[in-house]
């Protein structure tokens, strides 16, 4: 090594390589970083949704690819009493079950928010119906509602309350109410625990101030608890409506849409027509017909319940 060849010092910085420049490019980076996410979304969300919508406009069956038939499927469905009944029951089921879940869930949340002995254990127990896989609880309810072997019928006959077995799912209206009851039972924990979380974020100082002003318990609930819960209530309700409207497992496991199609939800009817019935196009059309309802429910919850006025008092714009 001789010291005669000293390194030549250059003023300008070495021009970065093409690759480095590429990675310095903001547009390129955005594309590269987003590509995996967009790819996943396109593959697993957009493609199936798009395919479903496309199928709804064809007469595809399980045995063969279909041809484009325009809105023929929807025209048929508009005159199909079974479909119209499923629309009615889906809306009815969602409305009643949501009302029940929120009424009882809020009540339960308020109770759990009190200082109770073994509070944590109680809260864990409350979550059980939500943790158990729906199919399992559906099968339990299926036994509870069984025309021959229902435990409730058995007890009521033993105690002399009824002469024969109770009709839970053998006729249309009892079957509808039985399913709604099962859905409420299953949905309460989710609502109660979510609202409980909301309750615990409300500052105790608000209640103290209200107490000093001599507010009654009802006034405290109406003017503090309820408005402060509104944001989380809106989100939980949106989720709950979507889950209830698209419910499938309870109905399919307990009644399969019977008796005589009276308890078909749009989701179960779409499955029944599409997969066992083999009419993929028609099944897809029923599923697509659910979208407007879901969009409406979401918008209603979002814009209706999440308004600032509702949350922070009438005068706050």
């Amino acid at each position: 090594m001789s010291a005669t060849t000293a390194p030549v010092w250059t003023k300008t910085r070495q021009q970065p390589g093409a690759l480095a420049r590429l990675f310095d490019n903001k547009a390129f980076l955005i594309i590269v970083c987003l590509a995996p996410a967009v790819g996943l979304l396109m593959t697993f969300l957009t493609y199936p949704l798009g395919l479903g919508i496309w199928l709804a406009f064809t007469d595809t069956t399980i045995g063969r690819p279909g041809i484009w038939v325009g809105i023929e499927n929807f025209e048929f469905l508009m005159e199909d009493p079974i479909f119209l009944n499923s629309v009615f029951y889906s809306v009815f089921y969602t409305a009643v079950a949501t009302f029940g879940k929120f009424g009882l869930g809020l009540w339960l949340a308020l109770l759990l928010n009190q200082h109770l002995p073994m509070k944590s254990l109680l809260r864990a127990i409350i979550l059980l119906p939500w943790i158990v896989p729906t199919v399992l609880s559906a099968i339990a309810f299926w036994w509870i509602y069984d025309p021959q072997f229902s435990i409730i019928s058995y007890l009521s006959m033993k105690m002399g309350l009824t002469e024969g077995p109770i009709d839970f799912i053998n006729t249309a209206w009892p079957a509808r109410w039985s399913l709604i009851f099962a859905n409420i039972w299953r949905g309460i924990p989710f609502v109660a625990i979510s609202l409980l979380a909301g309750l615990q974020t409300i500052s105790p100082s608000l209640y103290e101030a209200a107490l000093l002003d001599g507010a009654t318990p009802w006034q405290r609930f109406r003017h503090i608890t309820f408005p402060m819960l509104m944001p989380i209530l809106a989100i939980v309700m949106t989720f709950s409506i979507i889950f209830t409207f698209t419910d499938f497992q309870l109905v399919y496991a307990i009644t399969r849409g019977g008796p005589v199609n009276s308890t078909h939800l749009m989701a179960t009817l779409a499955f029944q027509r599409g997969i066992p019935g083999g009419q993929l196009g028609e099944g897809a059309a029923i599923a697509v017909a659910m979208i407007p309802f879901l969009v409406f429910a979401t918008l209603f919850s979002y814009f209706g319940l999440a308004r600032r006025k509702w949350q922070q008092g009438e005068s706050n714009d």
Partner: protein
Amino acid sequence: MANLITRRETIAAAGAVAAAATGGAAQAQIATQPATAPNLPIERGATLRMLRPVRFVQPDEDVWRANCQRFAQANGIEVRVDFVGWEDITQQTAVTANTGAGPDIIVGFDAGPHLFAEKIHDLTDVATYLGQKYGGWRPLANAYGRRGDRWISLPFGASGGPAIWRTSTLREAGFESVPDDHAGFLRLCQALKRINKPAGFALGNAVGDGNAFANWLVWSFGGSLTDEQGAVSINSPQTVAALNYLRELYQTFVPGTLAWGDISNNRAYAAGECHLTQNGVSLYFSMLNDPALRHIAEDTQMTPMPKGTLNAVPNAGLTLNAMVFRHSRFPNAAKALLTFLMETEQYDPWLQANIGYWSQPLNAYAASATWTKDPKISVFRDTMNNPFWNGYKGPIVEGSVAATADYVMVQMCAAVASGQATPQAAAAEAERRAQRYFRRR
């Protein structure tokens, strides 16, 4: 239908397999006619994959696998058999057919192969040979195996749905057996109701039992979903007569039949809540193998459902129906395997291993020892002699499969039984729905 497999059943049936394997004499009685087997040179290095619905009893699977292995060894090829759940077989067949990949052979149910007629091999040569050799195909096999005048699939057996009843109860009600006419059948059910040991038939969304009962009701009055040309014919005076009859018959049923699924009548019968119903042989065997229920099994008798106004038993057995896909690279091997499985040395032991769950599609096997072991199951021997199929009496098309799967007939009956619709209105509604499924495309 319950798929109950007990250890005892398994052991007992395994013994039966061993007996069948050692005693060659049991096979000698299957009479054959001279016939020339089609020339099917097996492709060198062939590998076959077969998909089949799961077994009723363990020996079914064991014998089936052993038969396939023998074929594989004799021809120096590979055969793999997979068993899948009953509910999944149609969907898996659809995926196989639409993607052109997957098993070479699928054993599906009933009219399944007709959905994929363009995607499967013609089996006329094999079916003709087997028919000649074994005394001809039975009517149900002809219905499900053929499309026009060619064979598209090989039926392997069917499981029927006779009336199943308690001997002691019928005697108590003053009947020795189930009458073969409508009026007598109604009188029997009324008598059973009076002694508080009622009959019950599934009217809920039960693919097997619900359709079996609804089909029986309509067919036995001479009604049908479609006519010979395949036009929808459900809205007929015969159907209305059947539904009027159902209104009276339903009064005698045990409560809750509108909510019954496939398993409900099994449970109600085993619990002694229901004393006359319609079911496959599984109910009898599940009770026979349960010490607590054995006395009910011994008191049980199975006879065909009443013929009503017809000369044949209005019942379409659940049929195993094998198809060979065109995408298979080894069609000769696949066809040869199916032929091999239908030959006496393989088929008779398999039939016997199934102890009556499946009934033969070829006449000669009616002489199998299967049908002499237990006189009670001899009612299943002629399951495939009944000239009725799902979607009767038109040619089998997509609509026949779809209308059955979508409970068109069942719900027509249930609507009348529940009082939701008059017979006329229910028949008209069924016609509306059926026309949608049978529309020309």
